[in-house]
């Protein structure tokens, strides 16, 4: 399995990166490979945006595998704070330390309990402190509040974290950072400025066919192609939740399991519920496919 190690990475071309990602089962289009390449060269985070299920998170995972690096993931949610994202003092351990040695001078204890052994690292700090370079995935950044975003700015531009009691911790190795967003809210200008922007849309018919064939190798090529065309057609309908790539993969597996070899009206109608998540969408698409 071809891996791009740090040494090889500095001389890699966008084509090499595409090949390495491909070897991990992730099919990048040219733009994705180009942006990953630039991110590495410019030492900049990538902000990946796009509809749900087009493989934003997958990209980070494949990248970590291709580079042979550890993946550190920070899943964002409403209410995420410093203590969960960056670091926290280990109160219990500190308390034990204080109780264990009640005669000691306070200044001595203070120095001791605010040192690294009492620090609980959370994903961001962990990514920075790792000796081997890692891939840091900050998933669904649009879920945290605007104010929490500011937490990330120091890391994203300077790869460092300031802890009041310890001072500034600089990155030992530069992590490769991937942020994903479903665009449920506008991200701050400050954050966007620090990142390279990559929008991943639904794949073209050709690329989706390729994805289907890679991820579900038993699929006959002709079936894969007509499936991608049907999916593209369904996505053009005004529906609540257009099928994502992961849903077309599910569909492929379903069709295989049912032993369908050629797509016809019946086969599609019987399996529409795999592609579509809402009954109203299923009805709408079925009516439209029947040529209402």
């Amino acid at each position, binding site marked *: 399995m071809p891996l791009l190690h740090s040494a090889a990475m500095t001389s890699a071309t*966008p084509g090499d990166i595409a090949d390495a990602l491909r070897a991990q089962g992730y099919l990048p289009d040219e733009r994705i490979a*180009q942006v990953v390449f630039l991110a590495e060269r410019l030492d900049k985070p*990538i*902000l990946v945006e796009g509809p749900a299920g087009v493989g934003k998170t997958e990209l980070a995972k494949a990248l970590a595998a291709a580079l042979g690096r550890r993946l550190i993931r920070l899943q964002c949610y409403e*209410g995420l704070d410093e203590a969960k994202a960056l670091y926290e003092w280990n109160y219990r351990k500190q308390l034990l330390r204080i109780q264990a040695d009640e005669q000691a001078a306070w200044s001595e204890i203070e120095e001791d309990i605010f040192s690294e052994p009492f620090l609980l690292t959370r994903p961001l700090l962990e990514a920075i402190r790792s000796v081997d370079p890692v891939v840091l995935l900050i998933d669904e950044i649009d879920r945290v509040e605007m104010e929490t975003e500011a937490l990330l700015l120091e890391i994203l531009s300077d790869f460092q974290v300031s802890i009041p009691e310890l001072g500034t911790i600089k990155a030992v190795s530069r992590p490769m950072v991937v942020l994903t967003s479903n665009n449920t809210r506008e991200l701050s200008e400050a954050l966007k400025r620090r990142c390279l*922007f990559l929008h991943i849309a639904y794949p073209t018919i050709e690329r989706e066919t390729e994805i289907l064939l890679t991820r579900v190798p038993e699929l006959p090529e002709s079936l894969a192609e007509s499936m991608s065309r049907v999916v593209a057609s369904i996505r053009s309908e005004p529906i*609540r939740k257009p099928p994502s790539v992961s849903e077309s993969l599910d569909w492929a597996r379903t069709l295989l399991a049912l032993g369908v070899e050629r797509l016809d*009206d019946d086969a599609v109608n019987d399996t529409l519920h795999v592609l579509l998540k809402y009954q109203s969408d299923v009805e709408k698409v079925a009516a439209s496919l029947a040529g209402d």
Partner: protein
Amino acid sequence: MLGILTGFVEELREVGIPVSMVETIDAARALEHVDLGSRSGLKAALGSTLVKNARHHRAFEAAFEVFFSLTGPVAGSDEMEARREAAMALLSGFRGGGGGGGGDSEDASDLVAALLRSLRDRDEPLLQAVVRTAVDRLAGIEPGRPVGGAYYMYRVMRRLQIDDVEQELLNALLDVDAPSLERRLVVEEVQRRLEQVREMVRSEIRARLVADRGPRAVARTLRRPLVEDVDLSAATRDELVEVERVIHPLSRRLATRLSQRRRRGARGRLDVRRTMRAALSTGGVPADPRFRRPRPGKPEIVLLCDISGSVATFARFTMQIVYGIAAQFSRVRSYAFIDSIDEVTGFFGPGVDFAEAMRRIGTEAEVVWLDGHSDYGNAFGRFRDAFLDEAVTSRSTVIVTGDARSNYHDPNAAALRAIARRARSLFWLNPEPNRYWDTGDSLMGVYAPWCDAVYEVRSIRQLERFVERAAVPTVRPQRPLA
């Protein structure tokens, strides 16, 4: 290269895409790493460093085409001649018996035949040759004219008889007995290929224009407002289509924001039980206080929309928002009014077709009482009497959309006050420019004191501003007691 880059950035800014200094520097740094001969590399480098919003991508692409990819061979150069000859060779087979050569022929039957063949057989080189020759022979480009090329485009497509080509292509590829799915896929495939032809012709024409007048001049004539800057009351049909595409995610965002009830900041009350439990592990010292998390409320949104003729385009747009919100959240009540008001919630909902909903509002809802001219006073009064108690609670956000032009009827501000008193907050979105408020029969100034805020909303950008602000917990303004 740096010269072109600054020109390009200036063009982006002219269009309305915000590009900061830092981003320009990033772009310049990125350019050091890409192969400048590779279009896609160049595009990725500039796109990812300069444009940070997917919605701006189309405008970026248009500007990119003009500035970067189209420095094609100059007319009359050796390379141009070579290209022309290659195209001629490919096309020679299609020329009828005594068909004229050269570039003067009005008759394009050879090109039409070649186009059809290339599309049917997916013959890419032949298609290229057809497009180039067609633009040479049929566009009749006049050097120096400050045009964007739409007319040339029209001329080429008409002479290529593009509609006939589409029909013939369908005839050739479509099997009438095939099942409907199959037929549908073929039709879509044909449309895709024709769209590709249009795109190729368009960019070929642009290349000629750029070679003639330089990128900046051409970019200027091609400039279109960004989706978010389109004036909603004067939008063209194409612009509306684009607006409607971005409305959907935006209305979802609006609903989400309205539902985020002061979650941030306030951590909720101390949870004594869980704090005590946690304190056990620290020897009884409550070192780690636990809090109850305030639960986010479900959005309760009540929309009152003026759908009278004077705000017709805007009403369609606000209905789109209603539609978008209703598809995502169930706790939305919507009401339409002209001089009376009626509930239209039932016409929307998950999976309902927008056109169908609009039709039903037009025919079934009782929004007209007397003469079908807006009467805000009566509409608010009726709402207060008929719907207020059941629809609005202290958790509801009420949004009124309309121009507040009430044809000199009684404003009935007391009714709006009653609505505002009962609701958590009341916002008013007015599609008229701020400076026209309170002129003529506009009652904006009369109603404004009862609203938490009044926003001018004439574009997506302004709507977004409202969405961003609406969620910020506001201290309700002191209301006059009258």
